[in-house]
């Protein structure tokens, strides 16, 4: 039989792959060449030395690092990353809590309540997130001006320039108080482990929750008074047109936080609902037959099994929320895309470097979230004995 080389599957495979690699290399070569030419022609510098140049602009919201306009672009980057992480972290937590509540409400036997949850889910899921962010921002800046700002116990002020509140001032010795708080958490972790082990082997129960709560609350409190109250609060005071002192949460952050968590919660509630529904009816009936109360059926039987179904889509919701936090640029929230990928890029003109760093950072954040959620996912999966 005539055996043509092209009829050999192995040969064809190698040929195709070589062609793909070849075309890719050729394309890359072409792009690099034209880019180099274009950059030279437009007098755009290359390399990463611009990171050490002073930025020359201000960032309105930088709760962790103190930022001045003389600081470098590198610092702009770090402020941006921290702001992105801050709003993503707060958003993920709030979205999870709200999502679980709404998901359970949707399965409530109360028809009216489940309908309301349904309407909330449909409205938030079916309108663009960007629109919701802008809408929240528009609502927040319609709040009263600083002079007429409504107050709560002369401590919190709600105005169109943000939420003003007391700021903790850490004096000498406050480290020890914080240390004791950390210690409290560590101790309660070990107590919980010991209590679980004991219950597993002997069946004796231990009031873990109350013990740990009192350790976490009272240990730092006692240390706090022994050290002579080293942490005080600084209250905001109205002076002229603005508040002096205190801490402020800007409306950009509040708008981002509200929009991201409310939007993502709608998606999370759907995964929670389908997770709970995925637990077969027999499980519920069997645990009822054992005499468990409704609350314990939910906590011990339904939720642990539902979590196996819920966690993988929950991970992708967290990833979505983190990526969606890049929309802060629409309301001027100084996140990574707005500060570094936007203003720094425009000032230096080094589009390739700025975009590459920004994209790489998002990839890194995404991978990190996936990594930790995968570990958690593995820990709750069904272990066959």
């Amino acid at each position, binding site marked *: 039989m005539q055996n043509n080389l092209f009829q050999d599957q192995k040969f064809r*495979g190698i040929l*195709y*792959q070589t062609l*793909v*690699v070849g075309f*890719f290399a050729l394309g890359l070569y072409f*792009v690099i060449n*034209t*880019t180099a*030419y*274009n*950059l030279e*022609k437009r007098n755009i510098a290359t390399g990463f030395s611009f990171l050490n140049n002073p930025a020359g602009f201000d960032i309105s919201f930088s709760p962790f690092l103190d930022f001045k306009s003389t600081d470098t672009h590198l610092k702009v980057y770090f402020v941006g990353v921290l702001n992105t992480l801050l709003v993503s972290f707060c958003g993920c937590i709030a979205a999870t809590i709200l999502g679980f509540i709404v998901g359970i409400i949707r399965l409530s*036997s*109360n*028809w*009216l*309540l489940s309908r*309301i949850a349904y309407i909330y889910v*449909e*409205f938030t*899921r*079916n*309108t*663009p*997130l*960007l*629109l919701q962010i*802008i*809408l929240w921002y*528009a609502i927040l800046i319609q709040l009263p001006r600083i002079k007429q700002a409504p107050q709560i116990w002369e401590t919190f002020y709600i105005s169109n320039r943000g939420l003003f509140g007391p700021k903790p001032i850490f004096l000498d010795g406050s480290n020890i108080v914080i240390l004791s708080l950390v210690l409290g958490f560590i101790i309660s972790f070990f107590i919980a482990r010991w209590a679980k082990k004991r219950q597993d082997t002997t069946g004796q129960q231990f009031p873990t929750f109350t013990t740990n709560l009192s350790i976490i609350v009272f240990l730092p409190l006692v240390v706090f008074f022994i050290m002579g109250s080293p942490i005080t609060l600084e209250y905001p005071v109205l002076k002229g047109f603005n508040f002096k002192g205190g801490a402020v949460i800007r409306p950009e952050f509040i708008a981002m936080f509200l929009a991201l968590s409310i939007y993502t919660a709608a998606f999370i509630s759907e995964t929670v609902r389908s997770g709970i529904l995925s637990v077969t009816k027999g499980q519920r009936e069997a645990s009822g037959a054992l005499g468990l109360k409704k609350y314990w059926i939910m906590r011990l039987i339904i939720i642990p099994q539902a979590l196996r179904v819920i966690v993988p889509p929950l991970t992708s919701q967290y990833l979505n929320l983190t*990526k*969606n936090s*890049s*929309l802060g*640029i*629409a309301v001027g929230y100084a996140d990574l*895309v707005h500060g570094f*990928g936007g203003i720094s*890029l425009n000032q230096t003109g080094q*589009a*390739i470097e700025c*975009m590459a760093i*920004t*994209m790489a950072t*998002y*990839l890194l954040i*995404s*991978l990190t979230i996936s990594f930790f959620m995968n570990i958690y996912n593995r820990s709750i999966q069904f272990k066959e004995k």
Partner: protein
Amino acid sequence: MENNSNFETRKPPVATTGILGWCRLHLFSNWVNSLITLLVIYFLYQLIPWFLDWSVFSADFWTNYKGELIVDRTFCSRVADPKGDHGACWAIIIVRFYQFMYGFYPSEQVWRVNLTYFLLVVALLPLLIEKIPGRKHLIKFTIAFPIVAFILLYGGFGFQVIPTNKWGGLLVTLVLGVFGIAIAFPLGILLALGRRSQLPVISMFCTLFIEFIRGVPLITLLFFGMVMLPLFLPEGLNLDGLVRVLVAVTLFQAAYMAEVIRGGLQAIPRGQYEAAQSVGLSYWQMNRKIILPQAIRISIPSIVNTSIGLFKDTTLVIIIGLLDLLGIGRGALADATWMGLSNEVYVFVALVFFIFTFSMSRYSLYLEKKLKTGINMGAD
């Protein structure tokens, strides 16, 4: 027997049928539920009349409370008479309706846009309704539709050329949404097949591409299209702004589409592949005739869901300066004659998006139900 008298006769069970029975079962089953029901009713009683009043009964449409025709913000009842109890001022939408629909498309050519909208519906019919007469021929039109739409909207072939910077409003939203989905779909299929390919290099390239795109936010890809793409292309090749955005949106959508279709491919039992190969079909024949029709069929609901996501994400183009539906709204608010009416504009834009996305999600639910009963995968 006398023993019977010792037992109390049980009450008959509470009725669970009829309106009263239904209420008892679903609203007042115990005191917690009753309390919740009453609270919710109170909450709705506060909210619904207020919203209806704001949006309809006390709202301005064409004229204000004095009966004057509204031409700018100062005529709006709630601006002209801030102490009075006035609702929304929808005149901003009515006056600027043309812009919301077509942007700055020349009005003497606007029939072309309307015709395209109509043809879009015709092109969608064979996809939505399976039992439509002449479906085979209509499908051919559906495939040709993007080209027809492009010629109609942009011009050439005897039509006056309308540059894309004149396009706006719903037109841009729909162009990005429809073209994005239409191009991303075949691209997504190729990527999904590539990722599952036996050839390691091709599989690696596709995996890297998909994971990279899925790992970064769409906005960075849009920036990529706007600021980096011009640097990569040789001089003189100036891509249109809308095209650059469309490239970014399509690549983004293709990566997500690929993952959805890969899910469908994974659900196809091995036997289908083996059977196709044993009848002597080539790789492409096997995929085209056996595997893909089944894989796409089961992944249609997810495909619709990612398409909804893309449709909502098209709003992101306002960040790089394109005027889609939301962009036109923001433009109207930035105009001094209509400032301060943000609630009306955003509610209107939200409503338009809601109508599109909600009907899409209903359609995907309908498909899901139909598919559940309709097919029996890998039947034995």
